């Protein structure tokens, strides 16, 4: 077997190309990373958060151990946090599902899911604000410093999960959480309605 200069160059070129390819592949995001990547826009109580589907504003926070709506009445040993949310769709009608919302405590605990009084928030017509209440069941010691994470659209039964969220600081201080946790007056939910109706 005879080694030539051309042969050596070819071998070096192949090794170089494989090295470059390996480095590029390592640096490119993996498919699962792209699929799971979350797009989070942060905001605070009263501030409009712009998402691809529209704008979401949490205008007020209330709490009670008893909540009722047209669907029924719910009582908890913990606390129901009621978020007053204003939704304005962009481009096409938008529906949000309060069951998708998560209250995230400072220590990372998450609260939310289905409640007996939850109603869909939508459809919001583009350009016409819709007011809704989101009810989340939590424990009183999770309220201080809590955020709420709202998906940009209702999670569908089929298809990939929603990856865009509004993360809103509810502005609950330690004293504020004690006040909210002590609330016992029942709250009646009005359900989704156009703003001003």
């Amino acid at each position, binding site marked *: 077997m005879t080694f030539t200069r*051309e042969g050596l160059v070819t071998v070096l070129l192949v090794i170089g190309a494989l090295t470059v390819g390996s480095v590029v592949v390592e640096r490119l995001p993996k498919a699962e990373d792209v699929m799971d990547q979350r797009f989070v826009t942060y905001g605070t109580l009263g501030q409009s958060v712009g998402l691809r589907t529209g704008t979401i504003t949490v205008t007020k926070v209330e709490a009670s151990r008893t909540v009722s709506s047209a669907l029924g009445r719910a009582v908890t040993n913990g606390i129901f946090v009621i978020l007053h949310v204003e939704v304005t769709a962009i481009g096409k009608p938008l529906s949000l599902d309060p069951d998708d919302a998560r209250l995230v405590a400072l220590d990372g605990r998450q609260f939310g899911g289905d409640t007996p009084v939850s109603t869909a928030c*939508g459809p919001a*017509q*583009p350009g*016409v604000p819709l007011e809704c209440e989101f009810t989340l069941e939590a424990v009183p010691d999770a309220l201080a410093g809590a955020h709420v994470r709202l998906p940009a659209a209702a999670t569908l039964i089929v298809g990939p999960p929603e990856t865009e969220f509004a993360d809103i600081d509810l502005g609950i201080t330690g004293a504020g959480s004690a006040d909210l946790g002590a609330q016992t007056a029942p709250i009646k939910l009005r359900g989704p309605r*156009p703003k*001003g109706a």
Partner: protein
Amino acid sequence: MAPVDHGAPPGGDAPGPVAHRRWWERNRLWVLLLVPLLALALASSGFRLVRIYLPWNYSRPQIAHASAMTFSQDWRYNSRLTFHRQATIKVRGVTVVDAEGGRRAAPGATLYRVELQLDADPDVLMTGCDIMLLGPDGTRYGVSGAKVDIPGADQPFGIACVPAEAPGPTVDVVTDEVTPSDSPRPTTWTIVTSVALPSAVKPTQVRVQWTEPDYAVLDVPS
């Protein structure tokens, strides 16, 4: 690796034919083959887009550029039943009204009554339509939003896409079988619904759709 012609005269002006061939000449075939291979790689990576995303979304408009058109689509139900849907759609009117179907517009919105005329053979499945108005920028406005119920009035649930007493054939969701209606559907019928738009927006087009991915876009008659 290409063989080296050891018989070529060293330093000569006319080396042998093999040694004289440059890298490009010796590997031209493989480089050219890279083009279809790259095309194949791109096509295969677009599988999800072509086979899943586009067919399952409203991605194929049929634009009339008029207030009447013949809409045509082939569609499947549960990947087992295949159908052909052909209908002539005519926008008879999009007019401002105070109330329609027991509802009025929310504050800041204007209610439009949408009247469509449909022509289709009685054996064509026409249930389950959705109707929207489009603004000048293409924004879609649905039939449910920005409305307020009028107390005491009856509010219909959804759009009556076909005559209630003679809806034509439907698919039984339990048995996946096509069920004919008791009375044959007339070849021509009218759909009436309403859409509330922000008062600053005037509708320019009507969008009508049944099964993904096809949908019809017609002009609002002037």
